[in-house]
């Protein structure tokens, strides 16, 4: 039992990261139906911005978090304006290929500027272990989990209760109608990219802090996992992405903890496929039948 609880804590910490990255994926998808393959690389850039801010400027964890989120928001919007905006009306696969191009560019660019190797993220937040019986939780795990929850609550509030959130929802349902109703569609899309990228940036800093190892290709796998998390919960649905992120984190941990890590990815994919077959639009998604 102790071990199970311990594994759940491990799983939720890992899941927090996936969930944060998945949120950005799902928001961008929700609004312009683009699989933003470069999203994982934004997360990587977030980690590098955090790295530079803490090592070169000597700032602490929270300033690093904020600067990194702001930096990523800016990068996200720039990418959207340069690479995706001209393709608003192109096919989805074309936009996907563009996103892949952006992803290559960011990865190779970072390799070139920052070096291909692993960098050690400084330990900017003292790490202590708290024991609950035999179950141990580190302060870092608590920080990661709480930052994730706070950001998610803030995001939910933003989307559901504010004017800009309403605009985002309007654009995601029907951009043309939204435009007619006086919503500035371009600005709303850019704003969505900014928010999604900022969340990825936060995830990057948290990962840097938690694992203290960052490298230019670190975004590839979490990017895919986060995408899976988003699809799992029903892509375009914000609570779905959170659910998916936590679920995948926990499943990976449990498979590795009770069976073998050789099969953890395979199990995640298999569960995903089963979910999609049973609920083709994801766990929280509504299956919309095409109108004939």
């Amino acid at each position, binding site marked *: 039992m102790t071990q199970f609880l311990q594994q759940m804590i491990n799983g939720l910490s890992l899941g927090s990261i996936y969930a944060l990255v998945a949120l950005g994926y799902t928001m961008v*998808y929700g609004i312009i*139906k683009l*699989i933003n*393959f470069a999203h994982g690389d934004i997360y990587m850039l977030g980690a590098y911005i955090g790295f530079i801010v803490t090592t070169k400027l000597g700032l602490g964890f929270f300033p690093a978090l904020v600067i990194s989120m702001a930096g990523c928001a800016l990068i996200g919007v720039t990418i959207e304006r*340069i*690479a995706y905006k*001209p*393709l608003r009306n*192109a*096919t*989805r*696969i*074309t*936009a*996907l*290929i*563009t996103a*892949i*191009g*952006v*992803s*290559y*560019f*960011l*990865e*190779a*660019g970072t*390799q*070139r500027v920052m070096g291909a190797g692993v960098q050690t993220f400084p330990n900017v937040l003292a790490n202590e272990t708290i024991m609950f019986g035999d179950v141990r939780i580190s302060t870092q795990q608590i920080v990661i989990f709480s930052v994730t929850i706070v950001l998610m609550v803030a995001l939910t509030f933003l989307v559901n209760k504010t004017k800009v959130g309403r605009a985002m929802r309007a654009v995601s349902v029907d951009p043309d109608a939204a435009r007619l109703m006086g919503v500035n569609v371009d600005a709303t899309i850019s704003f969505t990219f900014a928010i999604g990228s900022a969340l990825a940036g936060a995830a990057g800093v948290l990962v840097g802090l938690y694992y203290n190892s960052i490298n230019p290709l670190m975004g*590839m796998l979490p990017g*895919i996992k986060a*995408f*899976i998390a988003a*699809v799992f919960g029903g*892509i375009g649905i914000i609570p779905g992405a959170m659910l998916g992120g936590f679920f995948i984190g926990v499943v990976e941990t449990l498979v590795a903890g009770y069976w073998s890590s*050789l*099969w953890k*990815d*395979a199990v995640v*994919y*298999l569960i*995903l*496929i089963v979910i*999609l*077959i049973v609920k*083709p*639009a*994801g766990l929280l998604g509504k299956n919309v039948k*095409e109108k*004939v």
Partner: protein
Amino acid sequence: MKNWMKKENLLWLGLIVLSYAVLNILISAGIINNVYKTVLMTIGINIILAISLNLIIGITGQFSLGHAGFMIIGAYSCGVMLKSFVSGVPGVFLGIIAGMVISAFVALVVAIPTLRLRGDYLAIATLGFGEIIRIVILNMKITNGAAGLILPKAVSWHMIFWAVVICTIVVVNFGRSAHGRACISVREDEIAAEAMGINTTQYKILAFVLGAMIASVAGALYAGAFYVIKPDMFTYSKSIDILVLVVFGGMGSITGSFISSTLVSLLNTVLQQFSSVRMIVYGLALVVIMVFRPSGLLGRKELTFSGLLKVLKKGKGAAQ
């Protein structure tokens, strides 16, 4: 027989023989050296991969991101065959056949549940299946796990050339038949296709299985030509690379796949000298090309001799 001897077909035959002869001459004259010969083989294998995925994505309209999964089946079928059973060219042929049979079977298993999904959901499900195939191979004994297989060279560029020819003929002939039209109708409008009596599920599966089998041929040839196969060479990134070739050339255009496979390989070779910026340039090139030509280099157009003649005539007309 007579039917077959149409002017268009004869012209194509002529072109195939001519290019084979020219390549042979260039190689024996040393103009195409070993480096370019390797590039040529890469191009050939990429063409086979691209047209096989084009059959699934471009012609049938099913967004698959798991194509590397079938390439790896072909590669390991051939690899294990060469390593443990039959060596040399016969081994390659047996490996190709084994790969096609296995990948057809696996494709069926993958296709039946997943092809009910649409668009991005299908993409992620196929990506998942591709990875599962890879992980299974990674954890098998006979495949030597992560270390992969070191293989003797058993495939020459001649073999690859003819494989490209055969695979292209298969895809083109399939595409230009009633069955191919049925696949296209699925891409264009699934509901209308069903209403016209087309079993859309069956055609989706058919295209998927056929594409998978052809991809496994490419994998088998790769194993025989490039000395080493390892599971981590066939991750979803490989599927994405193939997808890039298809979209870059134009979805649905076989000629486009030829051109894009060739251009990408050549670009890669040219940029070799600037290794540290190569991927940066490649990434940017993708973005720029997609921004300017969102439907790829050729869109859905094909190069045909009749089309060429038409263009020539028009050109003449304009000149006069």
